[in-house]
């Protein structure tokens, strides 16, 4: 990073003019939806910069923005790098992405006036050259790259319609721009030329920035960030995969064990991730966020960190897969649905800080040798060995077996070759010589053959052993899993028992309660019975009372009857109305009194209406007291009249 910082420290002069543009930029970036807050912080940082000028212009030209972006970097001593790093990890505002990426890649320092145009200008010339091939020898120095360019041209033409097909920006104009960009790059760096995947990068950049800027950005990415990646041999790309495999093996031993067991190599899936820098592999938002960090950091560390983060996120799910196809399909589809880009970037950057450029360089140096060996073998194989006899093909097959052994054989093999021929080279003649050398070795075929065969056997056995070990491990984990499950089952059984006991207790309680309830019900019933009894007895008593009353009445009637009959009529007349009145008011209480009275009253009230009174007394037994006196009075009046 520090190197890059210095690299960008070259243009402090731009600083003033560009600061003016900041506020208008602010307005533009308001459209950038997802990272609003980080954006604000970003501008806070900017404003705290003491050199800032008065805001003025409101027209936003792309170039000005570019300049702004580029000049964020010059103040290497003043600028809070750490903070910027945090902001970049939080996501670059979409409106600023193009400009910031150019700044990250260092487009300004790379840019050479008219270079792009010159590269494209040779287009027409080269076209002529191909058409007039007879003349082409006159410029012998240029023929080679041009013919190479033509070779790429076919591939570029094939890939133009296959780059984000259907994207509205890639209409005819867009395609032409893409063609120019890729052609210019192929001419700029013939050792890379055109490699599939660059079409996606180029189109992607074209969506974010003007064509020429896209060229310089692409150039920065391929030449610096991915040096040796997309070249003819793709050596660095292969080295990175070996490095990654080592890292994954170290970080996720369990996962790798499982994948080994399924026969899946991590690099089968991660290879395309690296080569495409996750484009088409992750959701767009995540791709953008990864590119933010990758371009900012200036190296490929983020590729490793992101891949490790993805393994961390999806490893647990992968371990459950049962065959290679499922594992790969699952990993691909899970990666394709990594929509939480913040989580991804955060896991990548924070979780794998110890994966840094220094460490990666060491690992790369360690593995590069092996890759170069294989590549050399390959070229040799392509040139001479393809059709050679059994031994050679056996050797070749063998070389794909475990590495340590293959290296051994390799050494031996190369030793043989250097003995017999003039060492290794891709020159056809020399290969021929070495090939004949190989034939010479064949002259002592038995021993040699046996040695090779034994080695093959050995390697086979080793591999079997390895797979057996893997299988054993797998079984062990399965066993552990079963034991765990068993434990869990036991535990749940215990819990179940406890629950059952509790249930029993509650059941008992319930029964008791029921019994109680029943008892209470019984008691209630008893009470009810008693109550009823009481009621009946009350009723009886009432009956008796009624009876007694009626008896009393009867007695009274009888008595009154007797009274009428026996003593003088007068006395009975004067007595009866009074007694009727009284009896209507309070029969029960004054029974005795009533019984005692007649004689007194009978004798005190006398004379006058003996007969009518007697009749009246009979009637008023059932009628009212009120009626009683009034009739009495009437009668009395009638008599008095």
């Amino acid at each position: 990073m520090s190197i890059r910082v210095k690299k960008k420290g070259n243009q402090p002069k731009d600083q003033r003019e560009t600061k003016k543009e900041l506020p208008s930029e602010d307005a533009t970036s308001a459209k950038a939806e997802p990272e609003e807050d980080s954006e604000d912080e970003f501008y806070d940082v900017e404003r705290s910069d003491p050199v800032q000028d008065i805001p003025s212009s409101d027209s936003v030209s792309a170039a000005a923005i570019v300049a702004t972006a580029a000049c964020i970097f010059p103040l290497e001593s003043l600028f809070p790098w750490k903070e910027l790093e945090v902001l970049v990890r939080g996501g670059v505002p979409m409106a600023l992405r193009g400009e910031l990426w150019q700044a990250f890649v260092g487009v300004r320092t790379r840019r050479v006036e008219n270079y792009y145009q010159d590269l494209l200008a040779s287009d027409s010339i080269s076209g002529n050259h191909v058409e007039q091939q007879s003349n082409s020898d006159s410029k012998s120095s240029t023929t080679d790259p041009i013919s190479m360019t033509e070779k790429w041209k076919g591939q570029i033409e094939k890939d133009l319609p296959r780059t984000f097909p259907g994207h509205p920006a890639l209409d005819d104009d867009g395609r032409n721009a893409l063609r120019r960009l890729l052609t210019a790059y192929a001419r700029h760096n013939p050792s890379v030329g055109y490699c599939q995947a660059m079409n996606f990068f180029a189109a992607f950049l074209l969506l974010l920035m003007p064509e020429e800027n896209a060229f310089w950005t692409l150039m920065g990415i391929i030449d610096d960030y991915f040096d040796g990646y997309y070249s003819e041999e793709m050596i660095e790309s292969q080295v990175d995969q070996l490095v990654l495999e080592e890292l994954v093996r170290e970080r996720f031993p369990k996962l790798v064990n499982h994948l080994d067991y399924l026969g899946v190599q991590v690099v089968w899936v991660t290879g395309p991730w690296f080569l495409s820098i996750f484009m088409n592999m992750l959701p767009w938002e995540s791709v953008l966020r990864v590119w933010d960090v990758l371009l900012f950091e200036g190296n490929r560390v983020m590729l490793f960190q992101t891949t490790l983060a993805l393994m961390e996120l999806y490893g647990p799910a992968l371990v459950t897969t049962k065959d290679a196809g499922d594992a790969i399909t699952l990993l691909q589809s899970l990666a394709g649905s990594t929509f939480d880009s913040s989580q991804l970037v955060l896991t990548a950057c924070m979780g794998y800080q110890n994966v840094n450029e220094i460490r990666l360089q060491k690992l790369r140096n360690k593995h590069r040798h092996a890759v170069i060996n294989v590549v050399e073998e390959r070229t040799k194989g392509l040139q001479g060995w393809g059709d050679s006899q059994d031994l050679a093909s056996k050797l070749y097959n063998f070389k794909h077996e475990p590495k340590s052994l293959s290296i051994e054989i390799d050494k031996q093999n190369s030793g043989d070759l250097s003995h017999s021929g003039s060492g290794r080279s891709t020159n056809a003649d020399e290969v021929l010589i070495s090939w004949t050398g190989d034939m010479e070795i064949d002259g002592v075929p038995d021993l040699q053959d046996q040695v090779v065969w034994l080695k093959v056997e050995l390697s086979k056995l080793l591999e079997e052993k390895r797979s057996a070990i893997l299988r054993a491990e797998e079984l062990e984990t399965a066993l552990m899993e079963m034991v765990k499950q068993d434990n869990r089952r036991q535990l749940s059984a215990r819990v179940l028992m406890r629950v059952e006991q509790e249930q029993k207790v509650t059941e008992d309680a319930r029964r008791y309660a029921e019994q109680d309830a029943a008892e209470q019900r019984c008691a209630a019933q008893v009470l009810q019975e008693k109550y009823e009894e009481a009621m009946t007895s009350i009723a009886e008593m009432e009956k008796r009372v009624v009876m007694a009353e009626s008896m009393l009445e009867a007695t009274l009637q009888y008595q009154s009857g007797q009274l009428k009959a026996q003593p003088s009529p007068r006395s009975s007349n004067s007595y009866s109305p009074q007694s009727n009145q009284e009896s209507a008011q309070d029969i029960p209480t004054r029974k005795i009194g009533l019984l005692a009275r007649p004689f007194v009253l009978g004798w005190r009230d006398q004379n006058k209406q003996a007969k009518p009174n007697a009749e009246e007394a009979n009637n008023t037994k059932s009628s009212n007291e009120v009626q009683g006196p009034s009739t009495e009075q009437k009668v009395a009046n009638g008599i008095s009249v």
Partner: protein
Amino acid sequence: MARRPDEEYDYLFKVVLIGDSGVGKSNLLSRFTRNEFCLESKSTIGVEFATRTLQVEGRTVKAQIWDTAGQERYRAITSAYYRGALGALLVYDVTKPTTFENVSRWLKELRDHADANIVIMLIGNKTDLKHLRAVATEDAQSYAEREGLSFIETSALEATNVEKAFQTILSEIYRIISKKSLSSEEPTPANIKEGKTIVVGGSEGNAKKPCCSSS
């Protein structure tokens, strides 16, 4: 085209799709595995992968298909995917003679880097473009016979022969495998090794099922 759930299968066969860039490998794959065709498909970076489970000779076979990038420089990377492949579909474009001329290079590539007895099928794709045909069926046929390859012409666009092509190569693989498991003796070490892996792979699939279903 009844598709069974992926869980149950008797055999797992790995097949690679190779051939020049733009001959239609990816569309053959998508036609076979998803019954889709896309006139404007993306270029393949590195490799792509898909599976499909189908009936072959009365057995359930899960085909694991690796679709590789066609650009020449990618061969260094894609050859890593040949390992363990039992079949290879070598595709050319019947409208582009150069893609047919390159078939021999691809064959060499396979013979150098793939298992010795890999089953190879030559496929001439894009037969729907009749007016543009530039490679005669007979030429390809005789070439295939010379090289001991099976041969078929397909159209991923019209879905002609795609199913048949995969069925053919898978049943051929199946025949070889079943023959080998019967007489699992004799040939070169490499062959024995390969035969073993396959049988183990197949029986493992079976052996694991009860274990998994019991858990």
